[in-house]
């Protein structure tokens, strides 16, 4: 019966919401501070922030050297 199927489906929704309601939440100020710290700590190792020399650049075609 489609009626009781609706009840079953609805019970699942309730169960899922109970699960999601029950989690522990960290303060946004703490979360923001941690995200910031992660970015700043890793900034020096981020080649797209620091840039790179062409000899280190894997996508730049290597210039061909020749002996004169």
């Amino acid at each position, binding site marked *: 019966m489609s009626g009781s199927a609706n009840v079953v489906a609805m019970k699942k929704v309730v169960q899922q919401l*109970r699960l999601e309601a029950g989690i522990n939440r960290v303060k946004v100020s703490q979360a*923001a*501070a941690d995200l*910031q710290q992660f970015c700043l700590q890793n*900034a020096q190792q981020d*080649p*797209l922030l620091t840039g790179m020399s062409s000899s280190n650049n894997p996508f730049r075609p290597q210039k061909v050297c020749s002996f004169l």
Partner: protein
Amino acid sequence: MAAEKAEMDALKKECDGLRAQIEAARKAVNDGSMTAAASGVASVGRVQLKLRKTLKGHLAKIYAMHWSADSRQMVSASQDGKLLIWDCFTGNKLIRTPSGLKTPDLCLCPLPVIVSCLWDLETGKQKVIFTNHIGDCMSLALSPDMSTFISGACDSLAKLWDVREGSCKQTFSGHTSDINAISFFQSGNAIITGSDDCQCKMYDLRADQEVICYQDSSLNAGVTSLAVSSSGRLIFAGYDDFNCHIWDSLKGEKVGVLSGHDNRVSCTGVPDDGMGVCTGSWDSFLKLWN
């Protein structure tokens, strides 16, 4: 049946109550804004990346791309029915294979390819099916520790799943249209989404809520794809306006743009070594920038 209707009404009431409870719990921890917290952080300035290579070979729109763990090879999928594997250092194609998958997103990882279910590549059987979204699931990403994954769907929700249990752990709302792109922040504590509503958002998993929105009144195109630089500071978001715009993830400001495609940018990816960003487009080309 009256009894059934009564039961449904009671259940609906319980749902509403639980939703209100969740919103209240989120508000209770919302004690500060990310942008305010980032006011003391130095600006990244204007980020200007150069086009290094254009990879030509697909015959139709490119839908998806993914970097190999070696940060050198990359696979791309196109409407031409082919998967191409590229050596991005030389620009050469390594393998060309017909794709049997009709997926808008592909994810290569030690686990089998994730579509919206977990496939065992060897047996070709579905191992776990994750059902919870109401709309089509448009985007997926695996967590850095591979214990969870996130999905974004046409119901405008993002959901966090436990890979082994197949259960949904958290649901994030806020977008007003399809979520086309989703990615983990490298620390594993936050996710970033991109949507047809022209916005990107960052949700913190531990605070269980949106912490920053990346939007600009001059940007009226939907977000199709996104990727994050290795420190997490830069977000590369591909848009329907043919560009990939670069956002400062902490300050929420636009800091650059990758222009060059002749059609919408459909996919974006940063390799594990962080040395560049790849954009793929409906113009059938892939471009490498750094």
